[in-house]
């Protein structure tokens, strides 16, 4: 095999230093491989980074909460030793149009008491629902750590995998299997309608079913995304979300630290321009200004479109595979607004006199502002936000998930001041006429105005704001169309269909070129499962 005399040869090269690329690198290095990670930016993390955009204010620029990170990865890579430190996010408050609010807490009983205020019936259902979702998430979790079987193969190994998969489904029992089927196929609104009557509860819960997708709460398929977001786990506590101390970038730094400790080399400012292919086999990568690195195996953490349509000569790839990759849907639908604030927002509904008016339990600002505020006042509000996007514009009144990381980790902002992260939907990548500066600012204004309805002081509290449209997310992180999951979590793009039928096992049509991004099974969120499964597959396949 060819080797560049002036440079060290590697066992493996990982393209992209996002969290999955880093996880993959760490596992390979841990197995004794000599690994190089090439990251195009000046810092690792991809969409999981912390940056000081305004002096003194640290933003978790893109991804802002953590929970899906697989516990086996935390354990096996010993991430806490490298700085992983998740601080729990304790509550979600949803302001309502009539001035009332709905609060949900980490403590199940407390949430139930609050819900009782809205609907005794729903409060009773809440137990049963929570239990079922818990079981559902447990039913799906083994699938997340499973190599997708090939349903078309007759090889004994695949048939066995398929039988095991069938056995797993059977083991759920009839009732739970049907519930799972419903979750896989229904809309989150319809699914929640079967359980609850309180609109604001359904609106807030259904919002987790639309994150990162180009679906509305009434679109079939959104219930699965709802479940996907139920699978988080922190220190064994299911369905818990949290912040990384110092911002999301700290998660990436921790994984990078682990990878380095195992001997991996990470090059920053090293954008890979193409994969070097010789006789149908990947042998290395070309980087930036003409450098080349060679290795036995190349693995890409970039999204499938960027990897196969951007880094390779299309003639190297079979036609049907190319068609699949072109058809892979990665429609960006979300934007991000990061704010530097001179003071905390005052949500009208959470003022003591208002809480008293609605018969709620007094909640100090210092408490609820440590959690999330969900701007999802009604199901129709969220659905209308989608309607706008569906027809080519950003939502005039977007759904928003608002958090204030500096409430939990004061080091994120100067004393007395704060950073606010607003995740918003929908902001379609394919906005009519394309994104430009004016549209970006108009979108930012729409977000602030929609928030000001519930927290009127927000406008004067803003010191600086950063508005990120899907086009910006694509430009900065490289994610195609700014899709935060590297490809939508739709039923036709999951499991053995992710990212392409027949290519769901992290391999690719190019010999020794692998994929490890969240565009592969199970995909999405700071989960790391793709990176780990890819590394394990590569180690099993390792050329001798």
């Amino acid at each position, binding site marked *: 095999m060819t080797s560049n005399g002036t440079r060290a040869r590697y066992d493996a090269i990982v393209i992209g230093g996002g969290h999955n690329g880093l996880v993959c690198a760490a596992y390979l290095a841990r197995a004794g491989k000599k690994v190089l990670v090439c990251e195009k930016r000046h810092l690792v993390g991809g969409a999981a980074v912390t940056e000081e955009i305004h002096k003194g204010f640290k933003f978790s620029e893109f991804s802002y909460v953590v929970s899906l990170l697989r516990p086996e990865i935390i354990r096996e890579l010993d991430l806490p030793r490298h700085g992983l430190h998740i601080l729990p996010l304790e509550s979600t408050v949803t302001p309502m149009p009539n001035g009332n609010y709905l609060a949900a807490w980490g403590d199940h009983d407390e949430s139930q008491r609050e819900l009782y205020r809205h609907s005794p019936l729903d409060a009773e259902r809440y137990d049963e629902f929570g239990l079922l979702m818990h079981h559902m998430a447990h039913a799906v979790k083994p699938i997340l750590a499973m190599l997708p079987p090939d349903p078309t193969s007759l090889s004994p190994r695949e048939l066995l995998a398929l039988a095991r998969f069938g056995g797993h489904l059977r083991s759920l029992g009839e009732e739970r299997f049907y519930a799972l089927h419903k979750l896989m196929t229904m809309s989150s609104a319809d699914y929640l309608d079967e359980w609850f009557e309180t609109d604001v509860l359904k609106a807030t819960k259904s919002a987790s079913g639309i994150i990162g997708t180009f*679906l509305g709460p009434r679109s079939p398929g959104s219930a699965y995304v709802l479940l996907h977001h139920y699978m988080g786990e922190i220190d064994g506590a299911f369905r818990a979300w949290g912040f990384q101390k110092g911002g999301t970038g700290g998660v990436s730094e921790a994984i990078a630290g682990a990878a380095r400790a195992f001997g991996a080399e990470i090059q920053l400012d090293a954008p890979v321009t193409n994969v070097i292919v010789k006789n149908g086999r990947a042998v290395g990568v070309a980087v930036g200004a003409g450098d080349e690195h060679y290795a036995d195996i190349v693995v890409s953490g970039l999204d499938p479109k960027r990897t196969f349509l951007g880094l390779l000569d299309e003639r190297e790839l079979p036609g049907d595979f190319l068609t699949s990759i072109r058809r892979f849907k990665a429609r960006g639908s979300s934007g991000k607004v990061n704010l530097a604030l001179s003071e905390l927002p005052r949500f009208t509904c959470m003022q003591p006199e208002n809480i008293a008016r609605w018969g709620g339990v007094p909640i100090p600002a210092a408490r609820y502002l440590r959690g999330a505020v969900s701007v999802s006042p009604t199901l129709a509000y969220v659905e209308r936000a989608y309607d706008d996007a569906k027809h080519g514009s950003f939502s005039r009144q977007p759904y928003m998930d608002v958090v204030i990381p500096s409430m939990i980790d004061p080091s994120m902002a100067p004393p007395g001041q704060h950073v606010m992260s607003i995740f918003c939907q929908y902001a379609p990548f394919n906005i009519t006429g394309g994104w430009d500066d004016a549209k970006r600012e108009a979108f930012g204004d729409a977000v602030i105005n929609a928030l000001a309805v519930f927290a009127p002081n927000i406008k004067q509290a803003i010191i600086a704001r950063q508005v990120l449209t899907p086009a910006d997310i694509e430009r900065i992180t490289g994610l195609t169309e700014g899709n935060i999951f590297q490809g939508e979590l739709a039923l036709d793009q999951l499991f053995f269909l992710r990212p392409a039928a*027949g290519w769901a096992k992290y391999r690719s049509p190019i010999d020794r070129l692998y994929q490890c991004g969240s565009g592969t099974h199970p995909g999405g969120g700071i989960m790391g499962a793709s990176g780990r499964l890819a590394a394990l597959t590569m180690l099993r396949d390792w050329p001798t």
Partner: protein
Amino acid sequence: MTRQAWDVIVIGGGLAGLTSAALLGKRGLHVVLLEARQELGGLTSTAELAPGVSCDVVDHEVGWVPSELLSELGLERSRAELAHIAPSVTTLVPGAEPLTISPDMQRTREALARISSHDAAAWPAFAERVSRLSEFLKAMYVVPPPSLFASGAGNLMSMLGIGRKARSLGRAGIFDILRTLPMSIADVLDETFEHDAVKGLLASRAVTRIQQGPRSGATAFLFLHNHVGLPAGAVGTSVAPQGGVGRLVRALATVAKSHGVEIRTSARVVQIRVHQERVMGVVLESGEEIKAARVASSLDVRRTVYDLIEPEHIEPELSRAVGNVRMRSATAKVNFVIEGTLPVSDESRDATFVVAPTSSYLERGFDQAKHGAVSDEPFLEIRALGGDMVPPNERRGVSVLVQWAPYSLQSGTWESSARDALGDIVLRTIERVMPGFTTRVVQRQVLSPLDIEAQYGATGGSLTHGELALDQMLFMRPVPALSRYRFPNIEGLYLCGRGCHPGMPLPAAMLAVREITRRGKDSARDVAAARSAPNEATPVPA
């Protein structure tokens, strides 16, 4: 009364009820069919709108008519008339030439070529793909829904049959079906075609009769579902008897009677009597009791379970599942009597016309309904009844399915002014694509989903007895516990309507009858066999 005790009572005289009764009668069982209305037909009724002018009052399609069913009932020779494939579907786009798709591949390609050479080139492969994938659905529609949990040889055979069919699709085919079923029809069409009119026409065939728009997940599945039973190339067309759906109703009734089935109209069942977990018979509105050891209901599952069975016989889980079935329709019906023919240049008066100029037109129409309003630019499916069978200068009925007009309106109710407003919207929409239509109208009839519910008994006005969606199909239809057509805890009670797998009346009835007559302890088939034996073992007449 000719007889006091029956082997089977069939409730409902629509297509599914009649098919079930005819098949059961043919197998030697003594069957009585009870229809609440004065006329047979239910959702597929052809009635006189004006003297001498008839129209398909509610639905004007009948879904898949399996040929083995026609053979079994001795109707094979009438196949061409009873299961007539609409010769074409024409989309009318304001200000543009109409586009017609027909089973004639060459003609369709020429029609497409006039607006897009790309789409004309894409057509044959697409038609072939649709045909192949819907053949797979068809294989699933001739067997009871397979279950991961059911035991027994029947279930195993279902699974093996479907598995074999899947294998025959090949590796690429299996992946294609797995990938396509959950997709939205909009995504599928965007991958294949470029012209808006083509996409609008085809998308309309996926969203017809459901409360979803073309961008909703799994509408690709419904597109294939609606293609089951159609020949290759007939993409977008449909099955309907010539001269109106009533013709099939009459044919089935005649066959049923010839097999000794007694058909009673104006016989509304108000209760299914259950004693010690066994069906005893039914009670009519008049107070009359009719006894039988088996009852098959072709009504929808909610009407059957909630209205006809005493609550103490239904477990709470089943009751809850039945309550959760989505049955609220957003399909209304407007029927016209017009003077002469439809004002269209197309010589084929027998065509189905759709107003679905683009996929986003449909999506916007659906958006309004989703928020509880009637689409002000609705999707219409228009059929002139009789086609060439009515002389050109005579009056004829025109049947128009209207989407979307939601069952529950956000503001107001379905009072007469709302119905009139809907009629006006429809008239305006037709006039835009068929100038001159309005002046030919001599009479109109508007049926809201609420009217369809009140007059034809379909809960929520649902023309499909429960929304067709991935979570309400196969082993989920109508609810998992009843997906094998029988009530697990009430001996002798069955469902046999379109609310069951596969969601179309004739195939559902066929599968239900197979279940009702399944060999086994005390099965209906054994009862029939025993009766013909010298030792009379029929249930004793009261």
